[in-house]
């Protein structure tokens, strides 16, 4: 966080400055929506390694980072992108081949962990997962946790309700806070100071943003004035949390951005095909490396496909899009 000042930066500079090898990272969005894909591809291009990635259900973004070998540790609730990959393919492969360490939580638990981080408390309570293996089985063992100062010493802790039976609750699970080194989110509108306006569901973006030491924002529209202050009720993240703002139209592509464009079913289907085959996935990665900016990547997709996914003004998604 940086209290004040002009925070507009080029995306490659922002990534270079803040996303270091071994960095603890979280990305916004959900499955096939509003993932900060331009930033994900920039991280891949800069060949940043050994990331500790915090994901709830950040489907496509998480899978591409894992597929590119950028991730060594993963804390996750769900690795899937809906119809296109009910289990993300590179995610699955990396786990089975033990290329990454993984720790499982539920979606609510991951969200509570970001909320705890944003609130500045070490944990939050829930009843979710009592009696399950999510509590019993730890992906990161006590020793690994002890060696790693950026990790809490326990996956989670069961606690008897200290208020007797208050709220008919005998027991809760406490889940530890997450404070990522860096959070990257993609939003519809941001201004030069870092105020953000998200249209549609916010997923866990707001909590992830406020929990982070450093916040990088990419946006469809960049306001170079105080226009967003005309509707303060609609700005979910005030500028004091932001470090860098990059103007990247189609910055969530190939995932969707409500009111701007839909996900690209052609890209996502092709990706799933590539992901299944080692050779083809390497070629896919080469194609990412070879495009120096998100604009180049979009150019290779072509105007026609981008027009197909353009959102209907009223609906916020592309109604006539062929999604089979």
């Amino acid at each position: 966080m940086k209290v004040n000042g002009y925070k507009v930066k080029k995306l490659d500079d922002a990534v270079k400055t803040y996303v270091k090898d071994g960095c603890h990272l979280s990305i916004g969005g959900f499955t096939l929506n509003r993932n900060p894909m331009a930033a994900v591809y920039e991280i891949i291009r800069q060949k940043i390694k050994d990331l500790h990635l915090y994901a709830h259900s950040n489907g496509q973004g998480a899978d591409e980072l894992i597929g590119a070998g950028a991730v060594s540790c993963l804390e996750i609730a769900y690795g899937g992108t809906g119809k296109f990959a009910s289990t993300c393919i590179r995610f699955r492969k990396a786990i089975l081949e033990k290329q990454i360490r993984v720790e499982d939580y539920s979606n609510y638990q991951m969200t509570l962990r970001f909320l705890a981080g944003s609130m500045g408390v070490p944990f939050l309570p829930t009843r979710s997962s009592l009696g399950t293996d999510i509590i019993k089985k730890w992906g990161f063992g006590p020793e690994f946790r002890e060696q790693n100062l950026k990790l809490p010493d326990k996956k989670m802790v069961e606690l008897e309700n200290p208020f007797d039976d208050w709220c008919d609750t005998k027991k809760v699970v406490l889940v530890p806070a997450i404070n990522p080194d860096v959070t990257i989110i993609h939003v519809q509108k941001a201004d030069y100071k870092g105020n953000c306006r998200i249209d549609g569901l916010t997923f866990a973006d707001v909590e992830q943003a406020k929990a982070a030491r450093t916040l990088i924002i990419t946006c469809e529209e960049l306001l170079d004035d105080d226009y967003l202050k005309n509707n303060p009720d609609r700005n979910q993240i005030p500028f004091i949390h932001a470090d860098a703002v990059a103007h990247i139209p189609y910055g969530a592509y190939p995932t969707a951005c409500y009111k701007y464009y839909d996900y690209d079913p052609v890209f996502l289907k092709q990706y799933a095909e590539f992901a299944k085959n080692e050779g083809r996935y390497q070629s896919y990665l080469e194609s990412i490396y070879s495009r120096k900016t998100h604009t180049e990547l979009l150019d290779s997709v072509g105007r026609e496909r981008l027009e197909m996914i353009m959102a209907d003004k009223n609906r916020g998604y592309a109604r006539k899009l062929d999604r089979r």
Partner: protein
Amino acid sequence: MDYTLKEMMAIVAAREIQNSDIVFCGTGISMLAAMAAKNINAPQSVIFFETGAIDSELEDLPLAVGDSRIMYHASSNSGLLDAFATMQNRFTCSHVVGILGAAQIDIYGNLNSTVIGDYHGPDVRFSGSGGACDVASFVSRSIIFMKQEKRKFKKKLDYLTSPGYLDGPAGRKKAGLSEGGPDCVVTDMGMMAFDSESKKMFLRGYYPGIIPEEILQNMEFEIDVTRAEEIKPPSANELSLLREKCDPHRLIL
């Protein structure tokens, strides 16, 4: 009238949903079942998603719970925190019905959607809990979709992702969970429910053309089949509403 097994499953699950229910649903057939209920037998039911949209219009079928199609004309768009809080909330939780799926299920309705084999060196890896563990922990009733296969109806789960009745009638209480638990399991052959006393799964119904014996052959554990009856196939009305209103482009069906 001809129908597919997927259609049958969606309709059978939809029939379990009532007008006062708030239906939590995921992707694929679970979303279709929720939409079928709303369009056929429970028009007052409310559909809601873990991502924070409630009572969405759903003019077009979403392909994920993060799909922008669930954001259009909702009563409220928020985020994951609010959605799960609605399920854990002491007043709203009793109205929420969850629709879940899994890779494995046991006789007490516990679910595995994480791994096959050893957790630290799995043979197969699935997506993980997502919101399933949360839903199963919080809500009063859940409807579970399963494929009727021996490797899926397991004596012992490889990983317990989402709690059913855990180890029996006192299981949830001992663990600290609220009452509630799975209501029924809808498969491609029939439907199971859970005994109100023992909390063990039993066969409640089988599809036309299926005999209970076939169902038992496709399970690793034994269940009571004495209470089973044949399930009515989808009516013409149910089918046409499902096909025309819920999935006209056959994205799931």
